[in-house]
């Protein structure tokens, strides 16, 4: 993730630089958009185009990619992954297989109902259900770490199903991409 951020910063830097350079060569049009300016100056074209796409080269950051979904929800006291989520989990596994330097923390969570210690176990069971699918789909052993927080770190604060359904979840947290 850090590396990804670095790339984003770098890219936006290039874009800015391109804009500045253009401003220097065309001081009479200071408000011009970098993209438009780039058309006039061949050296800045690539930078302008990439900034406009707003996409940093990792499918994790592409809202159109199934990999942008990194939270999976579960029924009460269940660790069953839905059919739809299985397909998405498979995409994550393939991504990890293709990016051996990437790693992922699989965080398991539960809603507040029931006992806290049992929920800690339940969160782990949910995370392990996702982990198992990912290992089956090609993620290398060692790329992942399972951590359960039980009900201790809710995503939503309420005390009814509208919050509970958001809290019975597994989150994938990538690093090294």
């Amino acid at each position, binding site marked *: 993730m850090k590396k990804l951020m670095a790339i984003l910063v770098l890219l936006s830097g290039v874009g800015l630089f391109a804009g500045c350079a253009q401003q220097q060569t065309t001081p009479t049009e200071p408000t011009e958009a970098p993209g438009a300016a780039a058309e006039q100056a061949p050296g800045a074209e690539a930078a302008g185009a990439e900034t406009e796409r707003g996409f940093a080269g990792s499918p994790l950051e592409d809202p159109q990619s199934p990999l942008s979904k990194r939270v999976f929800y579960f029924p009460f*006291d269940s660790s069953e992954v839905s059919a739809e989520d299985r397909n998405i989990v498979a995409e994550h596994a393939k991504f990890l297989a293709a990016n051996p330097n990437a790693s992922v923390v699989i965080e398991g969570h539960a809603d507040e109902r029931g*006992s*806290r210690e*049992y929920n*800690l176990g339940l969160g782990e069971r949910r995370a392990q259900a996702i982990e198992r699918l990912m290992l089956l789909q090609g993620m290398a052993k060692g790329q992942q770490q399972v951590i*359960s927080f039980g009900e201790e770190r809710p995503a939503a604060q309420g005390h009814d199903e509208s919050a509970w359904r958001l809290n019975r979840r597994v989150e994938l947290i990538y690093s090294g991409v």
Partner: protein
Amino acid sequence: MRTILRILLVAALCSTGTAQAVLNIEITEGMEGALPVAVVPFAWTGATPLPHDVAAVVSADLARSGRFAPLALDRLPARPTQTAQVDYAAWRSTGAESLVIGRVRPREGGGFMVEFQLLDVPRSQQLLGYSIPATANQLRRVAHQISDIIYEKLTGERGAFDTNISYVTEERGADGKRTYRLAVADSDAYNEQIILTSAQPIMSPAWSPDGRRLAYVSFEEGRSGVYVQEVASGKREKVASYQGINSAPAWSPDGRHLALTLSRDGNPEVYVLELASSRLTRVTENWAIDTEPAWSPDGRALVFTSDRGGRPQIYRLSMSGGMPAGAPERLTFEGAYNARARYSPDGRRLALLTGEGNRFRIGVMDIETGNLRVLTESRLDESPSFSPNGAMIIYATEIRGRGVLEAVAADGRAHQRLGLSRGDVREPAWSPYFK
């Protein structure tokens, strides 16, 4: 009969300079069968107000036990502070069986002397009287000791007011940052002292049998670990941080072993850790979630929660010398969800969390008969813990979106909210008698 008695105490907290805190004690039900008593406000002759209202603390203690129904202050026919001032006929007309009167006076060289008498109203005689010295800091503690003396005299059983509780609080700052604290306080949740502060969750405090140490779970390293901390010194050590879950510590009655839950072998299993040698023995073996161990008071059994039957239920494992002796047997059959059991001090009952649909309440099960009695009426109760005399249970519940502590008599007769102000309060653990 349903009596609602509301006592609002506004007390300036003791010398630590803490701002004023409001403790709203609400006794909402089940006063039936409770002994009517009267606790008259104690006399105080000093120039500045006392830091604590001793009689009010005593009255709240007695009410919380469910065994006593203190008269509301506006129903007291008189406010005697000396035995010579007591008009027994007037007190008999109130129905009060017992009367507590007392005085606080400044002591030479600083501090206070608290004197009180317990009077038998029908017989018009004194049952007992004591003088107890106290510093300003100790006034509440002395009040709890007075409650214990009265409780024991009138019920024949040892009181447990002069004991401690530990619990976890979570506070969310304006910036959304969470702060978790492990607290130790008096049995009525006053005199709170923080013994651990963390930006990561804290769980499952458990008192050692001598009351000197607390084992707990902390996520301070980004994942769960089990720690043991000396309460007085704050000195602590990490006793379990294996791969996976490290949680649910429970002291053996001799203080030499810690049962706990580890998932280092792939799924949550109960282990016994011998503290002196750090030797680990795995005592459950099942694909299920096995967790929340608790030792029987004689150390010869462990109960734990397992969903090996499909849903969480309580199982019991016989133990011999820290090793399992035989296969676990299922103890709970009533209710869809039973978890986090704690033994009563006499070993005959289990307090547990029992769930049906969306309601999770506190129940007490007679181990011999399997009969389960639900004690609470709310919907998100958790973490029951017996008082060391077995007469009361403290637990956590959610009220208007906030976690609070409540106490209930072990027979379900009285509920009392222990609602100190800050953040979400959860996972109370009642201390043993301090040895």
